[in-house]
């Protein structure tokens, strides 16, 4: 194995494998210094480079060539060099540029969070909250598109799309027979299923999970509930589809499974892709082996009242082992 490479991000040192990007090096450090990434998705080849939220400043190129890079660079695309020094949250220039990118992402966004299913688990909401400005300087009519059904299970609400291309790469790489791409140019560009032709294959539902905003949503869940009123539980089943991991999150309201999704990590990426049968058709508790309450980041609105002991989920309450898990998480949270 080649020698590890030393890199410093916001004054924190780490050694990583050669070929690692600045973003992934930062993720290995974790915490505040991880640049936000709206388009990069580690499981999708070719993704990244587009949204520009992950811009950072390279104040020292490497040990060999210490010159700073002339422009801010997309951390998801730029590989680290030995001795590189990177500024993210410590650079006013980066924060200013990022604020600009967030503003750009929002000027044509409908800001219809109150009626959007993604609210509460939306990367754009989080981004705007952490890096955006309070008001808008945009005084023109916002871009609008009609809603399109992509088959009977998925809805595309193009008006909310930030053109991160993740769903395009998903359609390209995960599903068979790509029927999903981008039409038109610039701010007229839109996701298309080639003249509203339905995506119909086993893995199309994953576009819902990769979408950072509420542009692609699960029609079987639409308007059923706000995510923070549902309680997530890890579960799995022995899926017949060899490509499907069968590892999911079940989102409960009382006894009812309202939706099934992949398991997302702290960067909004699913651990593994799941098939449409698991996602759309298996909505009964006895379809699944319940593993226990899902660990949710404390900062997420979903985590509020998630592990409370008084109104425990029926599936959890029935099983002493799951109850014990729930209790542990509850105590961890209130500490």
């Amino acid at each position: 194995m080649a020698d590890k490479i030393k890199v410093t991000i916001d004054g924190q040192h780490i050694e990583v494998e050669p070929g690692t990007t600045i973003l992934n090096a930062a993720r290995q450090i974790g915490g505040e210094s991880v640049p936000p990434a709206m388009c990069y998705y580690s499981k999708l080849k070719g993704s990244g480079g587009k949204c520009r939220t992950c811009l950072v400043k390279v104040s020292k190129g490497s040990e060999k060539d210490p010159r700073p890079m002339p422009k801010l660079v997309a951390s998801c695309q730029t590989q680290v060099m030995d001795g590189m020094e990177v500024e993210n949250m410590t650079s006013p220039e980066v924060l200013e540029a990022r604020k600009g990118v967030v503003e750009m992402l929002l000027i044509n966004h409908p800001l219809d969070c109150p009626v959007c299913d993604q609210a509460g688990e939306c990367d754009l909401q989080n981004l705007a909250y952490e890096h955006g400005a309070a008001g808008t300087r945009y005084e023109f009519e916002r871009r609008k598109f009609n809603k399109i059904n992509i088959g009977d299970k998925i809805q595309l609400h193009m008006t909310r799309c930030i053109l991160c291309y993740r769903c395009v790469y998903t359609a390209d790489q995960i599903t068979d027979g790509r029927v999903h791409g981008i039409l038109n140019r610039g701010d007229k560009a839109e996701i298309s299923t080639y003249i509203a032709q339905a995506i119909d294959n086993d893995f199309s539902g994953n576009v819902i999970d990769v979408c950072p905003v509420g542009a692609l949503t699960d029609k079987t869940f639409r308007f059923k509930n706000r995510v923070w009123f549902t309680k997530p539980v890890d579960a799995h089943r022995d899926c017949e589809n060899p490509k499907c991991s069968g590892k999911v999150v079940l989102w409960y309201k009382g006894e009812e499974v309202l939706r099934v999704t992949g398991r997302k990590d702290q960067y909004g990426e699913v651990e593994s892709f799941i098939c449409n049968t698991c996602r759309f058709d298996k909505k009964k508790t006895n379809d699944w082996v319940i593993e226990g309450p899902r660990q949710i980041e404390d900062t997420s609105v979903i985590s509020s009242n998630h592990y409370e002991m008084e109104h425990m989920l029926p599936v959890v309450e029935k099983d002493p082992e799951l109850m014990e898990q729930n209790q542990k998480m509850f105590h961890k949270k209130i500490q």
Partner: protein
Amino acid sequence: MAGKKILLEHIDVPGINTYEVYRKMGGYRSVEKAIKSMSPDDVVEEVKKSGLRGRGGAGFPTGMKWSFLAKPEGRPRYLVCNADESEPGTFKDRYLMEKIPHALIEGMITSSYALGANTSYIYIRGEYFYVLRILEKAIAEAYANGFLGKNILGSGYDLDLYVHPGAGAYICGEETALLESLEGKRGNPRIKPPFPAVAGLYACPTVVNNVETIAAVAPIVNMGGDEYAKIGVGRSTGTKLISAGGHLNRPGVYEIELGVPVEEFIYSDEYCGGIKNGKKLKAVVAGGSSVPILPANLILKTANNEQRLMSYESLADGGFVSGTMLGSGGFIAFDEDSCIVRNTWNFARFYHHESCGQCSPCREGTGWMEKILHRLEYGHGKMSDIDLLVDVSKKIEGNTICPLGDAAAWPVASAIRHFRDEFEWHVNEPKLCLERNYGISQKHEVVM
């Protein structure tokens, strides 16, 4: 030595568009010379010595670009000619290809030989379809005369040359978008690195050069790199085709020796013959719509009161504070009656229309700038709009995947830098502005 013509030397010879006449005037000598008496590396060396710089806009030294070309075993290399020419104000490549198509074909063959390419492409702007026909005819003539195809001039060197039309997108002139488009994909610029020299067309090492750059290779090989380097001034060697447009007495394509004073270029009868209708010069966009606009005083003289020359260095003197760029050589003159706000809006509209939409700052920012400029131009602007424009342009500049973002930001930022009073006038006196620009006095409704 002003007035030296190299590329356009025989432009007025009747029939110069045909193989026979072109050949009779000395055409294809560079192919013979290169293939018979030079190694590919010798040709690259001559191009290096010539100091030739890319004529497509960025002015990157061509010889250096060629020497970066990776040469892995067993993988083809490609030469791709960028004939997408869509920059507002630029129309020189079209003129050259239309009038002397063999000049480009000859350059393509000699350059392909130098780079070791056995398949080369000319990617031509879709709207130039009639020029594509002209080129295809010239290519057929070159095949028929043994300059293309298998075993060129009995040397064992093979070359096939194809012309491929774009579908009407300016962004496909950006070299990596061009390669995507040539591969049959959506013309989105690629994220670099890797650069085309390492992974270009079909992931193989590729050189992309402008039409004029490639055409200049033939005379460089003929006269030798050192001789070529004597033409021009300093690091701006050789001649350059300038597309002169706007309020000039004699607009058109001129071949100039680099280093001609801007003043001479505008006013002398050898070139543009002065400003139309005896009016005064107000401003110039010297290198195509993407470069900063300069007011008359700064285009004629630098901030240090030195004469400004038509060269890469002199036009860039003063940086973006008081200078501009030679760019693609699209020289647009504005007379005293032109409206800078209106022109800036027009350019902004173009970039908004042409953004590919991949990156957020360009996709959203170009539209935003256009809308603000539209409102200013039609008398609904606010004083705060001017600083807002500057700020939005800064949020785009440098933060995007390809230089289209910069190209959209610079014209706006420079127009405000040099003509802020005119923007303010639009806010303070909207009626007078409408009257001047459109001959109407009532405010009319803005349709956004």
